[in-house]
């Protein structure tokens, strides 16, 4: 008995319900929920407009140098300079490093949960990932700056000594002065994006048709060959989306990075050097900024907003398409 609700609603007023009060309440309630739904769009539009408006003085002051300029001298008395390329670089390096670590590990965890784990282990394993996601980023930052960074410094120096005479590696793993570096930021970020990449990867792996897996086993595949031949080809697009969602999260992560990246304005190929990221520079300099400096920091926020929205939107579209295609395959 299919009886669409909407048709009942459109029934004439002469039906059993009394007209009047109920109908008004119906309209009010529907309108309120409609408004709440639109609120999401309103807030997003307002974020873009209001912050861009506030950042306009800095954009006008610096022009294209705001993005392509390397010199950041907000307190220069004659001509303050707002070139944010170094922060862009820091954001890119730290979040790509994070992905490099987090994507394989997350895919491994997701495979473990969907293909490998015995039933009794599944719930505790998911709980571990959930708890990892629940730890506030500032706590990761605290552990990062007071525990991990000091402990990592000897490790960085050891790696540098190991590769000092190798051409490219020697400069990528360059000399380390202290533990607050791009590398530390990347590692902490990796831990923070593992839960999100894992959960999306799990969703993607769950859409792989059981028939495909059983077919692979029936052809004599080992478990790993089944994963390679049936699971991966089906989920490639979805995994790309998951990685991009992780990238979006890593780019916008502020406090943990602020604490462990070191806070120096430089573009260095050396992963063991201090740097800064877009989100981190806002948090660091916010307290002491005023006037054009504040406007420039908000400008960095606008660029960051645009980048994360773009990355997140494309990621969602990719994941959605992949899921729809999977469902089509199973039906």
């Amino acid at each position, binding site marked *: 008995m299919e009886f669409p609700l909407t048709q009942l609603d459109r029934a004439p007023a002469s039906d059993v319900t009394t007209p009047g009060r109920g109908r008004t309440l119906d309209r009010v309630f529907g309108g*309120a*929920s409609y408004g*709440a739904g639109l609120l999401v769009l309103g807030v997003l539009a307002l974020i873009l407009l209001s912050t861009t*408006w506030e950042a306009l003085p800095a954009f006008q002051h610096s022009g294209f140098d705001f993005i392509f300029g390397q010199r950041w001298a907000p307190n220069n008395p004659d001509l303050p300079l707002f070139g944010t390329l170094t922060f862009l670089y820091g954001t890119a390096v730290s979040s790509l490093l994070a992905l490099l670590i987090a994507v394989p590990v997350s895919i491994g965890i997701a495979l473990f949960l969907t293909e490998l784990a015995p039933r009794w282990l599944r719930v505790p394993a998911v709980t571990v990932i959930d708890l990892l996601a629940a730890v506030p980023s500032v706590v990761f930052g605290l552990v990062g*700056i007071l525990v991990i960074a000091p402990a990592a410094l000897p490790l960085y120096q050891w790696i540098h000594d190991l590769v000092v005479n190798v051409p490219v590696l020697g400069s990528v793993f360059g000399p380390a002065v202290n533990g607050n570096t791009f590398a530390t930021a990347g590692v902490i970020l990796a831990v923070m994006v593992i839960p999100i990449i894992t959960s999306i990867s799990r969703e993607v792996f769950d859409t792989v048709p059981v028939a495909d897996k059983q077919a692979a086993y029936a052809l004599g595949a080992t478990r790993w060959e089944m994963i390679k031949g049936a699971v991966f080809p089906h989920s490639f697009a979805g995994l790309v989306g998951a990685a991009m969602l992780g990238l979006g999260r890593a780019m916008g992560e*502020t406090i943990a990075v602020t604490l462990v990246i070191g806070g120096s304005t430089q573009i260095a190929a050396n992963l063991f050097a201090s740097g800064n990221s877009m989100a981190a520079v806002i948090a660091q300099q916010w307290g002491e900024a005023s006037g054009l400096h504040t406007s420039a920091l908000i400008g960095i926020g606008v660029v960051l907003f645009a980048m994360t929205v773009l990355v997140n939107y494309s990621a969602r579209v990719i994941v959605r398409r992949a899921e729809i295609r999977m469902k089509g395959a199973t039906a």
Partner: protein
Amino acid sequence: MTATATPAREGAARSRPDLGKSALPFRRRFANRGMTVLIAACLLLAILPLGLVVYEVVSRGAGVMSLEFLTADIPRNYRREGPGMGAAVVGTLVITGMAALLAIPLGVMGAIYLNEYGKQSALARFIRTMADVMTGVPSIVMGLFIYVTWVLAIGEKNGFGGALALACLMLPIVIRSSEEMLRLVPDELRQASAALGARKWRTIVTVVLPSAISGITSGSLLAVARAAGETAPIIVTVGIAFAANPDLFDGGNTTLAAQIYRNASLTFAGAQDRAWGAALTLIAIVLLFTIIARLIAARFALKER
């Protein structure tokens, strides 16, 4: 199973094809075993940092934890040793509470629109995608947004600005998790209610929402837990306070997360101790909310079956 692995069965294997794992070439067996170990090791890689964080926070935070630590004012001089995080505890509770008060009703209404009214219309689908996108907006950008629209408008940094920023961060999470829960409510219930003559709003308020309420509560609590630990929007919008300030609309405020950030980058032992103590308090609050949310969700799952 053990017999097939021994060479003693070679005679039998000749007459019947050996389908056991040992019949596989060494390379394939090795790859399978190796990858299995690697995949399991990935989970250990996730447990390791969680264990490290919990161990460090508990072992270093427990030393400074006391009732006085939770209630005393924050010392105005960072160099001074000894307690107090009272202002931050109060600030965290009132700011997060106000954010929840703003975001949860709006989020649930938004979810009602998506699941009961908009359904698969183009607008509803667009709002759904944008809510997902909004969960990815960096928290610092949310802070800047509230700074521009609220702090600059009223000319003062106060707790309500922080609450607004946290509410913006919670809103999309509440919408999406509530919608998932509303979708689980069977359509038969709605049709039965409509057949009894109830209007749509009545059906939603008295039938749909009550049957989804535990799922919505659990999703909202997770959003609250997430918001309680946010730092970046707080340091941008709420200013500073050393004594407890329960008034959201008057004067600066502070939260545990903001205090951890402020004290962590200082080299004074007293400040660092307070940071660890604040971290322990914050983790306890966040975990409490997360566990309550899981318990409610678990009971809901049972009822469904």
